[in-house]
């Protein structure tokens, strides 16, 4: 059942919020041990809040299309009174006294917060394996990663442990796990959703977005979280954020560009086939599909890891053991306290990126690395501008392959970084993009289709995605996959 359908039934009093919450909690009870999508769930609080929410819905306080829907929130979004760990040992005891603006917005929409989802530590990773609280398993195949960094959110949606989720996307962290888990994820135009209360990784790239069961849910949730926020100076005043109004089956004459350079040697054959088939489907529906050369893709990875690491090295300086969070024991003096707290509090991947970022900002290297990366970013923006002069949508894969097994990516960090090649340029250019399932490979793992739009063109993306989704037909949830493989994992409510 989609989030919108659930809300409709709650409104029609066919289902109560408490019943919906109970169903989700039971599902969590049943599946969490295997999947481990969440870092924090407080069932009693959820039940209590469900009852309160029902009253407020009955009073007519919440009338929106998502009122009463149980939602999971990535654990790097601050939640007032609820532990927010960023999947790091550094923040294991951190309880914010303020909520992220995006969280406040879903509360204003009358949604029910179920819990905080697992992720790569401080959103650094592509598999959710760098979490200090254990891995999350892919509901399509528990031997495989759910992707990352918003792996817990994507897996929770796929496993039915919530009806929708919030993630954050710095270099593909919403779109790639959505692709691996066979759900829909969207990264909006930079500045559409306030970053206030989102624990920063790469500030100039981070953006909060929805992860949902289908495109319609995704449009509704994006509409709920998009807002101008004067607490975030990179937040934009936008008009036309009534995204749900874009859900029309109509791509007649829509100009779609397919970058040839996205289909090179490192793209898995089965993924290539599935994505090409999706392009054909849209063409059959009336879109004008054309191949072109975007360029620069391979430079994007280097530029991205330079900029993101530089910003991260500075953003993560505040975690010092002084004010909140983890402080090591048995230190001698201030310097030692910093050193021990940060050495013990952060995981290996986070430390790797802090060191990388510190290096590229150091005097003598700044021009050669950081400044050069900014130049690549500017060139990338130009390349997209040129492309969007001809096309309304750019179509390609989300990731070079389907979900890998545990340990495969982390063993070779450079390979892991390269797997972000199709998603990171979108962040560098600040563009919106949506990821939705477009088939399965021979192992039964979902393949993701990525549609990229020009700044502020989320509606065009949603229209194209919605049209494709209708043409594709029901993608299904992991139940079928599990049955085909003869396993017993997963079933849907």
């Amino acid at each position, binding site marked *: 059942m989609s989030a919108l359908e659930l809300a409709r039934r709650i409104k029609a009093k066919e289902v109560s919020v408490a019943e919906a919450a109970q169903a989700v909690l039971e599902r969590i009870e049943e599946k969490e041990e295997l999947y481990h999508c969440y870092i924090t769930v407080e069932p009693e609080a959820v039940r209590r809040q469900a009852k309160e929410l029902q009253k407020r819905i009955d009073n007519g306080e919440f009338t929106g299309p998502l009122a009463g829907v149980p939602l999971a929130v990535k654990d*790097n*979004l*601050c939640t007032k009174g609820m532990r*927010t760990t*960023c999947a790091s040992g550094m*923040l294991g005891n*951190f309880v*914010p*006294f*303020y909520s*992220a603006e995006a969280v406040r917005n879903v509360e204003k929409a009358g949604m029910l917060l179920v819990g905080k989802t697992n992720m790569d530590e401080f959103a650094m990773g592509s598999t959710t394996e760098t979490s200090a609280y254990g891995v999350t398993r892919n509901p399509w195949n528990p031997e495989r990663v759910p992707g990352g960094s918003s792996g817990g959110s994507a897996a929770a949606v796929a496993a039915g442990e919530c009806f929708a989720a919030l993630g954050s996307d710095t270099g593909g962290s919403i779109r790639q796990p959505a692709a691996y888990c066979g759900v829909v994820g969207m990264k909006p135009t930079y500045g559409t959703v306030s*970053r*206030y*209360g*989102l*624990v*920063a990784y*790469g*500030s*100039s790239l981070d953006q909060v977005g929805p992860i949902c069961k289908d495109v319609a849910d995704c449009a509704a949730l994006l509409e709920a979280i998009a807002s101008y926020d*004067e*607490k*975030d*100076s*990179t937040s934009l005043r936008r008009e036309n954020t009534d995204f749900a109004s874009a859900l029309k089956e109509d791509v007649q004459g829509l100009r779609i560009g397919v970058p040839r350079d996205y289909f090179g040697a490192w793209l898995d054959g089965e993924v290539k086939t599935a994505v090409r088939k999706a392009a054909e489907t849209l063409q059959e529906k009336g879109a004008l599909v054309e191949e072109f050369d975007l360029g620069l893709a391979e430079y994007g990875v280097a530029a991205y890891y330079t900029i993101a690491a*530089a*910003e991260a*090295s*500075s953003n993560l*300086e*505040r*975690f*010092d053991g*002084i*004010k*909140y969070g983890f402080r090591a024991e048995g230190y001698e003096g*201030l310097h030692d306290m*910093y050193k021990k707290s940060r050495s013990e509090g952060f995981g290996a991947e986070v430390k790797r990126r802090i060191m990388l970022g*510190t290096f590229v*900002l*150091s*005097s003598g290297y*700044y021009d050669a690395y*950081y400044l050069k990366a900014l130049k690549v970013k500017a060139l990338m923006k130009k390349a997209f501008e040129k492309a969007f002069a001809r096309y309304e949508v750019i179509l390609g894969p989300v990731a070079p392959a389907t979900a890998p097994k545990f340990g495969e990516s982390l063993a070779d960090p450079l390979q892991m970084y390269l797997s972000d090649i199709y998603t990171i340029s979108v962040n560098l250019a600040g563009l919106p993009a949506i990821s939705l399932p477009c088939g399965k490979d021979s192992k039964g793992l979902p393949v993701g289709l990525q549609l990229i739009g020009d700044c502020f063109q989320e509606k065009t993306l949603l229209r194209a995605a919605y049209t494709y989704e209708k043409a594709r037909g029901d993608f299904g949830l992991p139940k079928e996959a599990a049955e085909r493989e003869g396993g017993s994992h997963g079933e849907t409510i």
Partner: protein
Amino acid sequence: MAKQYETVIGLEVHVELATKTKIFCGCSTAFGGAPNTHACPVCTGMPGALPVLNKKALEYAVAVGLAMNCEITRYCKFDRKNYFYPDNPQNYQISQLYLPICRNGSVEIETKEGKKQVGVHEIHMEEDAGKLLHGENGQESFGMEGLGEGNCSLVDYNRSGVPLIEIVSEPDMRNAQEVIAYLEKLRMILQYLGASDCKLQEGSMRVDVNLSVREAGVAQLGTRTEMKNLNSFRAIARAIEGERKRQIERMEAGQEVVQETRRWDDGKGESYAMRGKEDAQDYRYFPDPDLAPVAIGEEWLKGIRAAQPELRTERMARYRQAYGLPDYDLEIITGTKRIADFFEETVRLCGQPKKVSNWLMVETFRLLKEHGMEPEEIRFSPANLAKLIRMTDQREINGTVAKAVFEVMFEKDIDPETYVEEMGLKTVNDEGTLRRAVEEALAANPKSVEDYYKGKEKAVGFLVGQTMKAMKGKADPGMVNRLVKEML
């Protein structure tokens, strides 16, 4: 013959801007307050908190730049200066390295040697840090339960995020007199703009002195040191003399001057090295991605220019023209904005510019000096001074009484009208009463009366004095004088 040396001095002056709220959040900038009561997620560096620029801080910085003849950077952006220290909650300070808001300005100073231009290299904006309180071995519990076990330091973030500008001069000054003249000029400009109260003791103005010495006639600059912890103009002057002497002694002894940061100990009258050049940190400056750059438009700049308050020279010119005050008075009256404002308001109420000027220049400054107070600490109001002046004008009280009342007013801020009424200090100008008083004085002093008839004019004065004394100083002196002469 002993070598001649030239001292070269440049200053870095940090000034707290007088905004009501902090530079990147809505917390109060008020001085004092219980620890961490003026704090929020932003100025304590909580996860996910974001800075948003306070427009008023930008306005002040631009106004200061305009008053110092600077070029204004039209694209305002901020950079992060990364360094770990507990008073710095994010472990980076938001500052401006690449594009300071103002550049290439100058201010004119005047010393005994005449007028001189001091270049302003740049003015940049940044945030202040918090304040650390150190306890030692359980001696200090900061009045808090459970603290004070072992070594303990606490941090107060009330000051964290208070807006600062750093005014960096060119190395254009040659001695302490020029430095003090420059600082006084800076303070005057900042106070007249209302941009800062510039209190050295409270730290709202902090001065670092960069000083080097070279042999006279040598073009190349010597190695400089930076002096910190200078809490008064007097300390600054002493530190300059001390450092000049120290560097010359080293040079004469054939030792090199080391580039380093030194800390002035005003109690001992000497400085010691804090850190050398090799300890200089790599701050890894880079543009702060959390703050969207602000483009400064022509219209906005015009607005700031138009709203620029009168500075001292303009105000002097206006007073000269409107009130015809002598230059001597103008110098003193406009010497601080507080006195100038006080003067203007009092004149507006009673319309006696010269009399107001006299009260301020003579009695007020005498009492300020006696009490060791600054003009900012004046308690009485312009309204009460205006009343006092009106009462003397209308001969309700005489000059001696007025001065006595003023002293009470200065100390206790009383309403002079009520006070004079209550204390019965009004001048007696009833002819009958005064005649009786003079009669009594004449009767009581027959010797003086006799002297008068012998031609001793001085006796009149004595008799007037005796009458005034009998009247407890409250009689109208003019009338008493006339009556004594008449009645003799």
